[in-house]
């Protein structure tokens, strides 16, 4: 027997860190920070309930539960709860947030090329051109368009930094990506050839506002298996409210026929819509219905606008509540479909459930500056596409490679270890402080935790945990879809 077991008995036990939830009549624990999920039986639930009132010794627990559970069962349950660290010695120190920086040589899996910083639209809320922009995209030093040479250097950079990964992802972004269609075409052909030469596979995707989806473009996208995400905000009155041309004219009538043509012709990859929610458009259910049922998108992802709090389109507290309730309602639709083994295009729910299934526990809000990097039109490499062109957030260039010192400094600064406000939050495995760009716009500091979203993130994560528990109880085979 391990001597440490012998010395354990006698002291008082207390609850440690976890988040409990219930689903379909069963009780579960979401462990923090490991992100493991366990279902409780009667005995383990009784032990936790008894400890909820305060620390007790194992003997006291056995006595208290004697009328319901045998001593053996109680002791076994205590030992198992100890093993997963749901229960521990009352005076055991709180586990500190680990300071585990990623290993050197971490492979780059996705590179986002800002092939232009020019746009044919003037969406009021745009983080790249609107009131909260961090780079002067109009009169700044960057060229308006990325050259073929820079794009090819970016491909070489990606192939080198991808290390041993067999697949590399190249994403095109803007500005309006399709304004630089000639470079897109050349880059895809070049990347495909170079990837084959070095024994890798390259996957491509792009984001566009759909205004320039001409028949030859659509055909090229389909032939080349390019994943397409369309930025669109919803029905006509919503889309035309904030997504406008420079002359103020709405874009709905221009994009709708082009999107319909894209969906008809491009069948090689699922096509998604990406919606920006603002105070003015929070009808999540209506937008979703329009984009899926009436237009035919395979999936729709929603993101609240990134902006400083004083903008009139910034979502206020009541707006966050409204958004949450609609997410929950749409999420229930997703769950109902999942219980029937059917597809439902609410990608926010799918993405969160996948992270829950895998038990993701993050040290960083996202992979920016590590597994994902952005390239500005001049070839400077930034944390992600949202920081492209920002000197403060540049960590190298495609010609000279990653500046390892700057990257290391970024990784140290942005680690959850340096976000003490997150250290007591049960949702930190899945949130880890959130988006760096959101933090930069909101607080002027990319390393700040996004405290304005805390309640929202915890509520939404809790809801998704309930969905997950329901699926685990009623249709566990569905979860195997997330196994990859």
């Amino acid at each position, binding site marked *: 027997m391990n*001597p440490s077991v012998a010395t354990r008995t006698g002291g008082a036990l207390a609850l440690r860190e976890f988040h409990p939830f219930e689903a379909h009549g069963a009780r*579960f624990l979401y462990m923090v920070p*490991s992100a493991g999920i*366990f279902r409780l039986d009667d005995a383990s639930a009784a032990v936790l309930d008894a400890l909820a009132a305060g620390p007790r010794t194992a003997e006291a627990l056995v006595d208290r539960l004697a009328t319901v559970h045998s001593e053996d069962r109680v002791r076994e349950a205590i030992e*198992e709860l100890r093993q*997963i660290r749901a229960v521990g010695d009352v005076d055991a120190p709180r586990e500190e947030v680990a300071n585990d920086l990623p290993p050197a040589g971490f492979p780059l899996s996705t590179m986002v090329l800002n092939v232009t910083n020019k746009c044919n639209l003037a969406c009021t809320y745009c983080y790249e051109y609107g009131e909260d922009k961090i780079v002067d995209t109009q009169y700044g030093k960057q060229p308006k368009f990325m050259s073929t040479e820079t794009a090819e250097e970016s491909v070489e950079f990606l192939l080198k930094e991808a290390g041993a990964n067999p697949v590399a992802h190249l994403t095109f972004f803007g500005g309006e990506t399709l304004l630089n269609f000639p470079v897109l075409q050349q880059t895809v052909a070049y990347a495909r050839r170079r990837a084959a030469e070095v024994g890798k596979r390259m996957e491509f995707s792009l984001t566009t506002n759909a205004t320039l989806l001409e028949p030859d473009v659509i055909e090229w996208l389909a032939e080349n298996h390019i994943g397409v995400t369309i930025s669109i905000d919803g029905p006509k009155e919503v889309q035309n409210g904030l997504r406008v041309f420079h002359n103020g004219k709405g874009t709905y009538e221009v994009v709708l026929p082009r999107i319909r043509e894209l969906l008809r012709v491009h069948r090689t990859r699922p096509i998604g819509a990406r919606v920006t929610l603002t105070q003015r458009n929070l009808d999540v259910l209506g937008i979703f219905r329009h984009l899926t049922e009436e237009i035919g998108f395979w999936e729709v992802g929603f993101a609240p606008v990134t902006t400083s709090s004083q903008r009139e389109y910034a979502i206020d507290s009541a707006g966050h509540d409204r958004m949450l309730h609609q997410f929950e309602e749409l999420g229930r639709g997703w769950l109902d479909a999942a219980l029937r083994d059917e597809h439902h295009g609410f990608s926010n729910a799918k993405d969160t459930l996948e992270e829950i*299934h*895998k038990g993701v*526990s993050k040290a960083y809000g996202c992979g920016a500056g590590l597994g994902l990097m952005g390239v500005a039109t001049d070839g400077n490499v930034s944390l992600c596409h949202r920081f492209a062109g920002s000197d403060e957030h540049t960590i190298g260039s495609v010609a000279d490679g990653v500046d390892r010192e700057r990257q290391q400094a970024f990784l140290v600064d942005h680690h959850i270890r340096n976000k003490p406000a997150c250290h007591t939050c049960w949702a930190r495995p899945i949130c880890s402080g959130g988006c760096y760009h959101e933090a930069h716009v909101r607080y002027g500091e990319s390393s700040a935790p996004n405290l304005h979203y805390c309640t929202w993130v915890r509520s939404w994560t809790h809801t998704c945990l309930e969905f*997950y528990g329901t699926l685990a109880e009623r249709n566990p085979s569905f979860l195997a879809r997330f196994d990859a």
Partner: protein
Amino acid sequence: MKHLAPINQKAGRIEAHVAREKAAAELDVVGLESRPPHEQAGPHFPLGCSLVFFPGWEADSSGGTAGLCQPVERDLFDCHLMCFWPAHVPDQLNHAQDWTAKCASAQKDWRKIDLVFP
């Protein structure tokens, strides 16, 4: 586990880890056993200088000896009897005459041999 069911992938890994720890604890000290003590990433090195059971004469799971007998607190009492290695063991003639009194059989009782401080 009987009272907790692992539901997601991470919970499965935690359960497997707990099972390995438990198995390792039950196997106790491995010494010169030829089977691996539990699943581990590195090779198991049954490095020993004797064929009898002298706990401590093995490499640790990384193949090193840092966690084993070389630090003074891990030197084992049998070393000083027959090993040329300059083991630091208590002075049984003067200060710690009863050091091995509770250890009738090294294989069973080696944990009863405590540290001795000057």
